[in-house]
């Protein structure tokens, strides 16, 4: 039964890859080296790479352990077998991270990561917290409101790391954390918006995009502010570095918002993903990408708003 389950899961993964218009072997040829390059760059650029790397691996596992999915596994496999399934799934997810950590001889972090993913098997994650997490984001639109609540533990962790950066007087580390906060904001726009919640708006496509971008920028500034101010507290002389991070982060956020509606009602496709990736590395491309996505967004939204 477990074999059938994993065979089905493999089929589903391959279907996803094919739905992006790629042959699975091409995908693995691209993603494998890309992962190694990304990992090598990360370990080369910062001393905190092993911790960040392990955190990233845990983040992936955490997303795999959604409450409804766990209920499904338990219903169909029973408690014992569902734990075995989860253990195998978690191990498969962190395997690439684990291999690289071992290659970098970060044995303690690797052992810690293994222990944590084994422990996770006994705890259902992503439980809905019964109390409502207050947010500074008003009540519309919803992306920052729900995103902030979903990533609240991660933001708390970043706040703790920021405290350590202040204690060590490490401006670069603090600026890196601020950049990471922008990546978290981008994740708030990673899912396709339900067609119904676009449809209910009595706006023209242009007005709708204006509304979404306005609040993305406003809420982005609010969420980044404490981190930016902390950076300035560490080294006010490097204000221009942090200004660059903020401006680039916000402009990139706008590009992601537009990419979301350019692809609407579908998920961002591979070409759009590659364009966003290029724009991330080559900032001048970002302006062209924004222009392109804006035109496509208007076209996509015309179908549902007009």
């Amino acid at each position, binding site marked *: 039964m477990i074999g059938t389950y994993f065979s089905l899961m493999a089929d589903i993964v391959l279907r996803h890859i094919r739905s992006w218009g790629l042959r699975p072997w091409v995908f693995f040829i691209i993603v494998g080296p890309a992962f190694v390059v990304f990992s090598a760059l990360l370990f080369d650029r910062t001393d905190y790479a092993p911790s960040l790397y392990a955190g990233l691996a845990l983040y992936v596992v955490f997303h795999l352990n959604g409450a409804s999915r766990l209920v499904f596994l338990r219903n169909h496999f029973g408690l014992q077998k569902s734990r075995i399934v989860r253990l195998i799934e978690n191990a498969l997810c962190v395997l690439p991270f684990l291999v690289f950590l071992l290659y970098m001889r970060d044995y303690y972090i690797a052992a810690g990561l293994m222990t944590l993913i084994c422990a996770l098997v006994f705890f259902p994650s992503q439980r*809905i917290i019964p109390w409502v997490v207050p947010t500074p984001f008003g*009540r519309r639109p*919803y992306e920052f*409101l729900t995103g902030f609540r979903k990533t609240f533990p991660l933001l708390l962790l970043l706040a703790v790391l920021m405290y350590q950066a202040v204690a060590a007087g490490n401006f670069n580390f603090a600026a890196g954390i601020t950049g990471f906060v922008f990546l978290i904001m981008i994740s708030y726009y990673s899912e396709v918006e*339900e067609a119904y919640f676009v449809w209910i708006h*009595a706006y023209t496509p242009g007005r709708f995009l204006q509304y979404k971008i306005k609040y993305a920028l406003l809420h982005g500034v609010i969420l980044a502010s404490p981190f930016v101010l902390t950076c300035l507290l560490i080294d006010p002389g490097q204000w221009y570095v942090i200004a660059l991070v903020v401006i680039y982060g916000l402009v990139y956020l706008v590009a992601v918002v537009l990419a979301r509606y350019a692809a609407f009602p579908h998920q961002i496709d591979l070409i759009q993903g590659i364009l966003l990736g290029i724009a991330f590395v080559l900032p001048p491309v970002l302006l062209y990408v924004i222009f392109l996505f804006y035109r496509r967004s208007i076209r996509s939204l015309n179908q549902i708003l*007009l």
Partner: protein
Amino acid sequence: MITIRGLRKSYFGNEVLKGVDLTLSPGHVYGIMGHNGAGKTTLFNCIAGIEPYEGRIESPFSLLKNHLGYLMTDLYFFPMMTGREYLILCCAARGRSGIDFDARNIFHLPLDQYARTYSTGMKKKLALLAILLQDNDVFILDEAFNGLDLQSTLIVTEIVLELKRLKKTVLLSSHIFSTLQETCDLLYILEDGRCQRSYNKDAFSDLDRQLRVFGNEGIGMLGLK
């Protein structure tokens, strides 16, 4: 009046709607019946403009969707969004603000809890409350009575009748015949991609009898032992 003529919809060559004709007048409640998969939800999505279609839909509004409250059968609620925040989002989308949600919370929903923690019936009531508070002129209620408790079913029935009194246009589907019997002025049967037959209030009891006869014959096919 909303006039629908020759509405067609296909998915990958499979024609689900093959030319639906409907006329919907203000102050009337219309029911759509049909088997599972007959195309009721597709028809509603097309009228709402959520899905592209072929054919013609005319209404007195410049853009029908901005005057339409649509209660979908598959409701979606954002994670970690409270009931109150959901209502604010839906009302703000139609330019409505400053509403006293507590005063108008007819279903006594716990508005400050996350909507995803609500039961099936509570979610349905929240979504219904949202479209009612949007002050729409036309309502599409897809499976409005699904998952509701007895008292809520009675309340929703009264709401539909009140909407009728207020000269709103209501189009609804339900698999619970008694609810359609109590609320609708006209029932359309969606079969083979078209609204093949219609029944006015006087003919509802005949339709009920026909459905029961077919149901009893159908159970025999199971060969239960």
